[in-house]
């Protein structure tokens, strides 16, 4: 019989899978995996700042996850603005935001007194650490992501496929693109709780990339991606429990193994 904390971990993993499957599909088809990686890593700055303020100035209501959400949204806005205004230098500036966010985080962690086990959990993920409150927050964010996707899917699809055509049709392309990046930011924060900031990009990109091999429709790609993500979480959590491995890294490794296997199978069949 599974322990309660394992059930909690699986439920959290499944909740995160809904987000990673849906938003990851947009990320993969729009080819903004690098942008998502930058958002995911820049959250370290926000988490470090909040933890430092909490420990040094005693601001107890501040939590690393709030800092992560703020940093993710700020970096998503900055990257979106750069994409829209300075497309020619986009990759360099995104890399700069990526490393700046991490640098700020590392400095604040160094300045924060005490051993930062909380920070380590957010960095590398610890799904076994999930509380009832975290689970409710995950489900709440799931509802936001699913509702926004249902409302804006046609617009997201148009912007992902051909921004020029969407703009010609009178669509506010910049606004839709920014909304998509904001969703990526929120999803990143959801996934951090499961696999950690360092590995979040694996859960956004790998299930969707695998799903893309099995369908030619974005809506189906999302559904397959959610199921694959649930499967990787299930296998990953149980494997990590059996082998006493870190769960986030195990989930990401299982996903990578499936992707590698598919890649090899496709290469040998061609």
């Amino acid at each position: 019989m599974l322990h309660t904390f394992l059930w909690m971990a699986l439920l959290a993993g499944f909740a995160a899978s809904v987000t990673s499957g849906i938003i990851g599909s947009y990320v993969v088809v729009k080819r903004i995996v690098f942008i998502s990686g930058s958002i995911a890593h820049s959250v370290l700055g926000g988490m470090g700042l909040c933890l430092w303020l909490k420990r040094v100035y005693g601001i107890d209501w501040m939590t690393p996850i709030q800092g992560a959400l703020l940093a993710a949204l700020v970096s998503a806005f900055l990257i979106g603005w750069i994409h829209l205004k300075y497309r020619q230098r986009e990759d360099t500036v995104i890399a700069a935001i990526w490393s700046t966010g991490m640098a700020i985080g590392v400095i604040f962690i160094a300045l924060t007194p005490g051993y930062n086990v909380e920070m380590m959990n957010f960095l590398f993920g610890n799904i076994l650490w999930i509380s009832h409150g975290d689970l409710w927050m995950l489900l709440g964010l799931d509802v936001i992501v699913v509702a926004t996707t249902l409302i804006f899917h046609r617009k997201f699809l148009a912007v992902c496929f051909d921004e020029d055509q969407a703009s010609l049709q009178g669509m506010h392309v910049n606004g839709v693109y920014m909304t998509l990046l904001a969703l990526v930011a929120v999803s990143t924060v959801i996934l951090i709780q499961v696999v950690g900031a360092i590995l979040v990009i694996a859960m956004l990109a790998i299930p969707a990339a695998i799903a893309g091999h099995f369908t030619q429709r974005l809506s189906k790609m999302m559904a397959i991606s959610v199921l694959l993500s649930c499967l990787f979480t299930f296998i990953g959590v149980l494997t990590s429990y059996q082998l006493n491995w870190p769960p986030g890294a195990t989930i990401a490794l299982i996903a990578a193994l499936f992707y590698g296997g598919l890649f090899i199978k496709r290469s040998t069949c061609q």
Partner: protein
Amino acid sequence: MIETDHLSFHYEEEPILQDVTLTIKTGEFIAIFGPNGGGKTTFLKLLMGFLKPTQGSIRTDVDRPEMGYVPQLASFDKQFPISALEVVMMGALSYPVSQAKKMARTALERVGLAGKEKMAFGSLSGGQAQRALIARAIVSHPKILFLDEPTANIDPEAQQLIDQLLTELKGKMTIIMVTHNLPSVIKKVDRLLCVQRQITPFSPEGLCEHFALGLYHPPLMRSP
């Protein structure tokens, strides 16, 4: 109608178009040709409002949603998971989904792609994909149709189908088309514009005389 007045466009310090003043009348069929990098696509994007002029102005009595655009096929990701019907529906974004679907089916039929609605856009042949993009551009009955090399890199049979389609559309809307394939369009266009930093207009007859004098354009020399 579209009017440009001393229109110039620079990319950073590099001049792409300089001092272009011309008028395109409603219903005209215009072919744009010129060397690679001469500013053809830039000119098209300026007319559609994707780029802002560095100097001068563009005036038109047509709103952007009343413009249809067929971009170069090579600019699309063949792996993007989308059906032919969904691609065409993107030309009718302002309509409710059910109506857009109906309009898209009609447009696909019009370009000879009936029955291909569910096919993945990436699995269509070059000619079929190009026709799907034309269907997307005409699905909501635009007043101006812009095409950027619609017959590039497709087989002769598909080229013929697209030529036939353009002949059918002639007179029903203003058509402005970038092309390297002058022999196939010279008989049906009203005017040709040679874009090479500046724009030189020609009548079809005038262009033939120009060529006869030896001031040839290489793509025309490759004609059968």
